[in-house]
């Protein structure tokens, strides 16, 4: 997610007429970068470097193509892991293309396939990537209806391009006993159909082990939450993407990152910076916002909402399937606006932010549809709120000058 990715993208672009060459180059390039991140993570051993590593590890899974599962970011990946599958989120693949400025190739391909230009660019790019035939075919395609309604037709298309079945988990909008039983039953059905599809017996204790590890990590991070609120980790904007991606796609690996928090030094150098809360996603490509919120800026993004959407969930390894159903239903993003607003306001207060920026990703109706109401909620407690239009994936659908003018005016306002 830097100039380096863009440079690599330029090399790849020249070879797109030969899909196999692109496949090999991608594999070599990403694995080299993965090794570099691994070395950095071991050397520095801090939270963000581990999360940077996990995020790329998930993407490399798809590129390396060993027992890959294409899932959406809010899929119960723990079940897929317990079958030995490697999960990658299709949103992450779209993000990878965007970071290399190659998303236009995929988008054009998807539009040629008939996909609407209004459809979210994560989905459009994902479909384009599937059609470009440069990645090994997945063994499994699965999605939930969280967060958005575009997942189902999009993942159905991935499944149909790869001639494999689609697995859909329907998550209702409220967390109650009836809905937990319904989602649990669906997860049991998922396990059953995976057994049939992969011709492999489900390993119950493997799932228990994964959830135990996840619990250990999340417990440490939860315990440390109040300290993070006092002294948030300084990151580049794109690293927030890596963090939320690692939380959702690599819950089984988080422990290494979580443990670094226990030995984190309590210096308060970041406290002079003006803190902001980021709502919804961050653009994946190198853009003006990265410069505005660089590590040298007087402003810092204290946190983003998707880094904490697990906060109300307490994993229970003794009842792993039920527990995963609770994870899905306790996500504050799934219900009406008030649920999301309560959670976002809590983060704003806990992290003591001076302002909030909501990034309205093109085509994402669920996040920005009622953003005016969210803005009112923030303004009622005296936190200025900027609703910023842009695109997380398609770098041609944004204007650096517009980003800068809007953000700077907002920052001048809160300073």
């Amino acid at each position, binding site marked *: 997610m830097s100039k380096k990715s863009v440079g690599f993208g330029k090399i790849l672009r020249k070879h797109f007429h030969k899909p196999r060459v692109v496949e090999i180059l991608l594999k070599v390039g990403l694995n080299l970068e993965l090794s570099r991140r691994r070395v950095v993570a071991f050397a520095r051993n801090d939270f963000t470097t581990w999360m940077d590593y996990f995020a790329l590890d998930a993407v490399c899974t798809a590129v390396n193509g060993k027992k890959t599962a294409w899932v959406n970011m809010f899929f119960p990946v723990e079940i897929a892991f317990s079958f030995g599958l490697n999960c990658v989120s299709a949103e992450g693949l779209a993000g990878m293309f965007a970071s290399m400025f190659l998303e236009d190739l995929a988008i054009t391909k998807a539009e040629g396939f008939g996909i609407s230009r209004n459809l979210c660019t994560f989905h459009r790019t994902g479909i384009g990537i599937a059609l470009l035939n440069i990645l090994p075919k997945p063994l499994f395609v699965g999605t939930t209806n969280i967060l958005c309604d575009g997942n189902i037709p999009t993942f*159905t*298309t991935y499944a149909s391009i790869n001639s494999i079945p689609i697995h859909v988990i329907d998550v209702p909008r409220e967390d109650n006993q009836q*809905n937990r039983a319904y989602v649990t039953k669906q997860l049991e059905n998922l396990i059953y159909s995976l057994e049939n599809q992969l011709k492999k017996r489900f390993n119950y204790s493997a799932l228990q082990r994964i959830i135990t590890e996840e619990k250990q990590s999340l417990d440490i991070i939860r315990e440390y939450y109040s300290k993070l609120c006092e002294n948030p980790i300084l990151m580049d904007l794109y690293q927030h993407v890596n963090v939320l991606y690692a939380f959702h796609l690599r819950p089984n690996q988080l422990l290494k990152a979580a443990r670094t928090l226990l030995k984190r030094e309590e210096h308060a150098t970041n406290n002079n910076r003006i803190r902001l809360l980021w709502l919804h996603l961050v653009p994946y490509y190198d853009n003006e916002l990265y410069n505005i919120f660089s590590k040298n800026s007087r402003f810092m993004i204290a946190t983003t909402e998707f880094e904490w959407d697990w906060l109300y969930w307490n994993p229970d390894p003794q009842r792993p399937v039920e527990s995963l159903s609770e994870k899905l239903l306790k996500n504050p993003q799934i219900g009406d606006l008030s649920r999301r607003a309560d959670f976002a306001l809590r983060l704003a207060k806990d992290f003591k932010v001076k302002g909030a920026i909501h990034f309205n990703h093109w085509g994402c109706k669920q996040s920005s549809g*009622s953003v005016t109401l969210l803005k009112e909620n923030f303004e009622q407690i005296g936190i200025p709120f900027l609703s910023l239009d842009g695109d997380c994936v398609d770098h041609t659908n944004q204007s*650096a000058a517009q980003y800068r003018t809007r953000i700077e005016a907002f920052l001048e306002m809160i300073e």
Partner: protein
Amino acid sequence: MIVYNCPMVPFEFFVALGVPFKRVENLGCEFDRLNPNICSLCRRSVLSVHSDDVVIWIDSCDSARRTADFLKQTNKIFPLHIPVISTPEAVTELSNDLKTLWQFLKSIFGEVSDQKLSQAQKIFEKQLQLLEKALSEDLSEARDLYEKITKQKWVGSTKLKDKVVLVLGAPIEENLVQIIEESGGSVINATCSGAYSMISNLSDDSNIFRRIAYRILNRKLTCLRFAPKRNLSELINITKPTMIVLHTIKFCDFYNFDEQELRKIKMPFVVIENDMTPQLNAQIKTRIQALMEFSMNKGSGCEKMFDLFVGIDSGSTTTKIAVIDAEKRVVYKNVVKTGAYPAVTAKKLYNDVVEKFKRPRERIYLVCTGYGRAALDFANEQITEITCHARGVHFLMPKIRTIIDIGGQDSKVIKIEDGKVVEFAMNDKCAAGTGRFLEVMADVLDVPLQKIGGLSLQHSKEIDISSVCTVFAESEVVSLRASGHKREDILYAIHKAIAKRIGAMYERVKGAPPVVLTGGVALNEGVKKALEKVLDIQITIPPEPILTGALGAAVIGYQKEWL
């Protein structure tokens, strides 16, 4: 009054309660507190809800879900989540939610016995069966039943003519039916709120809530947001249409997923994107008429009545005229500025021809095309520019298979076989990829429009303009200029950007060489070269690329008489 947003609601409840109900409707203005990227239908229809209405709101699509956030502040509302799957667990889940909804309604409108609900449910199922039968036997009866069941106005034809147009996709309004009927077709409405969306498989479960849940989850034509596959082939077998219109609404992006299925079925179809404004009617009309012209007869073989065939192409920037005689020779052509009064300009061009050739008007066959065609009421016929370009190009170069036409305000990629249009794509309501885009950029760089193409070829450095949006691109050009880039390099980047936009449309129709470039922009060598690079093909420019539409119009007249 109960107000609902989607025909997946349990109508059985409303009937049992004996409370008046209606569906939300488009009142013509938009609710601007909903983000502009919410579907146009939600933004428009939410305003038809009164604060004392009780709202039953299906929240399975994101636009509806976010709309409910606002309705919660003003109304008694029950958001009903319809599971996206149709398994037995989903039926149980929905039946439990339906029970809660039934309690909610009774708490507002008063107690109703379960027996009454059971009666209402039986009558409703009976009506649905009758509706299914009537849809294939008697459309007037189907209309009456549909309106009785849903309390929503029937939108569609009640008598079928030769050209039966099956409309799929998002809800349509009367204007689309009118356009199709005026173009000689009749409409079967199989959109997500037409009568076909009501038809379901029924269950014999003894539990009434499970029965209703089963009906809702087992509709024969499912909504595209749901996981079960849509069975379009069966619908097409039953309705036997001549052609298909895939109707999408701006920011309701689901139904485009049907396009792949339609390609497999190999029936003529067109995709239209509607933003529910009356201003879009002209664009929709062009697309529908072009679809109708797919199956246009070439000639009647009847008595020869005409000896001069005139085609007028009334475009946004220029008006073109071409004349061919009974020997199929081009005997006259002319291009003038359209100006403020397209009809007056066209009439003057036509009068010049009448005077020049000294033929009685009744011996001249006039076909008009272009955006201004509807206003040219003195024509014998009005044909869309899509068909005309195809015929014109085929007349000049019979081997051409794809036409890229870039005009002042729109651009098209038309795929042809033997002079007939087999598929086309048009830009939507946006200047990206049109002559207007180049005009704006030429203006910013202070270069005369005619020179930008030539200058772009003198570039020495490859730079990129990332935005295709005219407004964003303009600000990028301004910054590139400010950072000292050469004008030629910026112009080259601009030409690449337009070529990329057109490239996407070319992909969409699966364009194939040989390719010809027509329209005013074809005179710009820079666009031709950029397109050749992006598409990796050779492009030919006809001798007078502006005139192919007018020429095609004249050819259509000739073919009517002589073939």
